[in-house]
C-alpha cells in the first residue's frame, strides 16, 4: 500500500468536509459581503438535528437520509431568521456583521450546551456505511466516501441551480452588479434572503454528515469555521469553482505536509502558503471581474 496515495485520499476526505463547510459561506460572502461567523453553529445545529431525528427514527439509515433533508431546513431557517432580524440592517457595514454573527454564535453554542448538555453525543452510523472499501490498494472508510459523495452532490445541485434556474440567474446578476440587477427589476433583497437560506441550509447538511466522523458537541462549528473561511479567502468569491479547488488544495496539502511533519506544523504551513499565494492572486483562485477599485 502506497502511503502517499493513502495520504492523498485522506486529503480528499478532509477537502470534502472543508468544501461542505465553505460552500454556503462562499455563496453568502460572495453575494452580500456578509461574514457569517454563526455559519459553524448552523453546522452544529444540523449535527444536533441528526441526533434528534435518530431519537425519533430508530433505523440509522432512514434517519440519516431524513436528517439530510431536515438538517437543510433547520440550517436554512436559522439563516433566514438571522438575515431577517439582524443582517438585513447591516449590509452597508459588512465588517461589523462578523462581530454580530460571532455574538449569535456564542449564544447558539450556549443554547446547545444548555439543551443537550456539554458532553459530546454520538449519532449511530448506518450498517451499510461501516467498514471500508479498497481503492487502488488503499483502505478507504465508507463514511468518508459517503461524505465525498454528499459534497459532490451539493456542488452539482448548486451549480445547476446557479446556471439553469431563474433564481440562479438572479443570484449571479446580483453578485456581478447589484445596482444594475436592481435596476433591471430583480428584487435583490428577496434574492439575498433566498441565497442566505440556501447557504445556511448547506451548513446544516454539512453538520449532518459530520456526525458520521465522530461524536458531536456544542463547539463543533467553531472547529471548522476558521478553516472554512480560509477556503473562501483562498478560493475567491463569486464562483463555486474557486471554493472547490481551494477546499481540495488545502485538504490535500494539509494531509501531505502532515505526513512528513506534524498536524500543528502543517496547519501553520498551510496558513503561510495561503498568505504567500495571495501575494500573487489577491482576489483568490477564481474571481468575478468587477469594476470596483479595491
Amino acid at each position, binding site marked *: 500500500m502506497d502511503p502517499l496515495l493513502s495520504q492523498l485520499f485522506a486529503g480528499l476526505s478532509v477537502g470534502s468536509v472543508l468544501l461542505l463547510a465553505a460552500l454556503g459561506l462562499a455563496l453568502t460572502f460572495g453575494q452580500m459581503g456578509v461574514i457569517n461567523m454563526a455559519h459553524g453553529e448552523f453546522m452544529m445545529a444540523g449535527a444536533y438535528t441528526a441526533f434528534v431525528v435518530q431519537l425519533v427514527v430508530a433505523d440509522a439509515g432512514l434517519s440519516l437520509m431524513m436528517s439530510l433533508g431536515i438538517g437543510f431546513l433547520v440550517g436554512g431557517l436559522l439563516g433566514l431568521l438571522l438575515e431577517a432580524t*439582524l443582517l438585513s440592517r447591516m449590509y452597508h457595514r459588512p465588517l461589523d456583521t462578523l462581530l454580530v454573527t460571532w455574538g449569535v454564535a*456564542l*449564544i447558539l453554542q450556549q443554547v446547545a450546551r444548555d439543551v443537550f448538555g456539554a458532553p459530546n453525543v454520538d449519532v449511530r452510523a448506518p450498517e451499510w456505511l461501516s467498514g471500508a472499501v479498497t481503492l487502488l490498494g488503499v483502505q478507504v472508510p465508507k463514511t468518508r466516501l459517503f461524505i465525498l459523495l454528499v459534497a459532490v452532490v451539493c456542488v452539482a445541485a448548486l451549480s445547476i441551480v446557479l446556471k439553469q434556474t431563474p433564481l440562479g440567474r438572479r443570484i449571479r446578476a446580483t453578485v456581478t452588479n447589484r445596482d444594475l440587477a436592481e435596476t433591471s427589476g430583480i428584487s435583490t433583497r428577496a434574492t439575498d434572503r433566498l441565497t442566505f437560506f440556501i447557504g445556511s441550509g448547506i451548513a446544516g447538511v454539512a453538520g449532518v454528515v459530520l456526525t458520521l466522523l465522530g461524536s458531536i458537541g456544542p463547539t463543533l462549528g467553531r472547529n471548522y469555521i476558521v478553516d472554512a473561511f*480560509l477556503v473562501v479567502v483562498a478560493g475567491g468569491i463569486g464562483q463555486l469553482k474557486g471554493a472547490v479547488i481551494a477546499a481540495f488544495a488545502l485538504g490535500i496539502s494539509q494531509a501531505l505536509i502532515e505526513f512528513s511533519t506534524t*498536524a*500543528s506544523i502543517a496547519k501553520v504551513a498551510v*496558513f503561510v502558503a495561503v498568505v504567500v499565494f495571495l501575494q500573487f492572486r*489577491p482576489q483568490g483562485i477564481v474571481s468575478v471581474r468587477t469594476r*470596483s477599485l479595491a
Partner: protein
Amino acid sequence: MSAVTSPVARTWAALTTGRGRTALGFAVAALALFVVAPATLSDFRLNLLAKFLCLAMVAVGIGLAWGQGGMLTLGQGVFFGLGGYAMAMHLKLADAGPGGVPDFMLLYGDGVVPGWWEPFRSPVFTLVMVVALPVLVATLLGLAVFTRRVRGAYFAILSQVLAAAFAILLVGQQKVTGGTNGLNGFRSFFGYDLNDPVNKRMLYFIAAGVLLAMVLLVRALMRSRFGELLVAVRDQENRVRFLGYDPAIVKVVAYAVAAAFAGIGGALFVPIVGIISPADVGVVPSIGFLVGVAIGGRATLLGPVLGAIGVAWAQTTLSESFPSAWTYAQGALFIVVVAFLPGGIASLGHLWRRRRGRPDAHQTASPAPQVGLDPGATGAVVDPRPTGPRDPATVGRTS
C-alpha cells in the same frame, strides 16, 4: 455654545469639549488608577485590576488599528501570546537558575533546553523581544496583506487564521511550550519574589503606568499627521492613494503599534496572573478583546480602556456565579452594541444631544467608526457624497 455666559458654565463647557474633555478624562483616569484604586482595593482585587489593565493595553492597540484605522484585527491574541510567552520563557529560565532546565521540560521532554530558548536567559534580550516579536510578525503580515490591497474582510479572516494556527502550534509543541497547560508556576520577576504582596503591588503600578503611557502615545499619534492619514485611509483609502500617499505603510505602522501594545500587555499579564496558555491567545480570546473596545467606543481614546476593564470585570463577577449567563451576556453585548450602537457607549452622548436637537459642539472630536464603504466587498460603486465628519450614532441608520 454661544449662549454660555457664566464663568462656571464656560469652564464646564471647556472641560467637556474636545481637548479639554480628553485632558479631564485622562486626569480622572490617572487619579483613579494611582490613588483611589490602591487605597481602597484589597491586594487580591488590586491584582485582579492589574490583570484587567493588561487586557486594556491590548484594547488600546485595537482602538488604534480598528477604531481609527478600520482594520478589524481578530488575531491580537497572537501578539499578546508572543509577548507573554517571551516573558514566561525568561521567568521559567530565571527560576531554573543559570544553566538550569525549566521543570516542565523535564516532565514532557528530554530535559534539554532548546537552542532558541537560550537567549531568553538574558533579561535585556527578553524585554526587546516582548516588543520586537509582535512588531515583526505584524509587519510581515501587514506588508504581505496591505501592499497587495487584500480587502478588509480578507484581512480580518487572515488575522483570525493566524490566531488559530498560533494556538494549535503552541498546543502541538508541548515539549518546548508546555502544551495546553502553558507556562506557569513562576516564582520571581527579575529577582523580585512574586509571592510578596509588595511586589504584586509594584506590578500593578507598573501596569497602570504603562497603560497611561500607551494612551498618551496614541493621543500624540492621532494628533499628528500620521493620525490624520490613518483616519483618512479608514474612510476613503483610494482618495488617500490618489493624493500620493501609500495607505499600506500607514496601515502597517498602526497595526505594528497595536501589536507592540498587545505584546507588552501579554508580558505584564504573565507575572501578574502567573500563567499563560493557548487558551489566552487563540481565536476565542482574540475576538473577546474586541467586545470591550466596541462597547467603550472603538474610535475614542479612553473608550476602549474603560470598555475592556468593564467587560473583564463583568466577566469575572458574572462567570463566577452564573457561567452560562456570561456567555449569553457576551453574545448579546456583541449583537446589541455592534448592530445598534456602533459608536459604543461614548456615542450615547451624541445620540442624546441629537434627540434634544442641540448643536453638537464636539462632533468632530470623535471620528466615526469604520463605516464599511468597502467598494469591493459589495461590488457597489464608491459613495459619491462628500464625506465630512460623521456622527457615529447615525451610522447605523443612514444609507
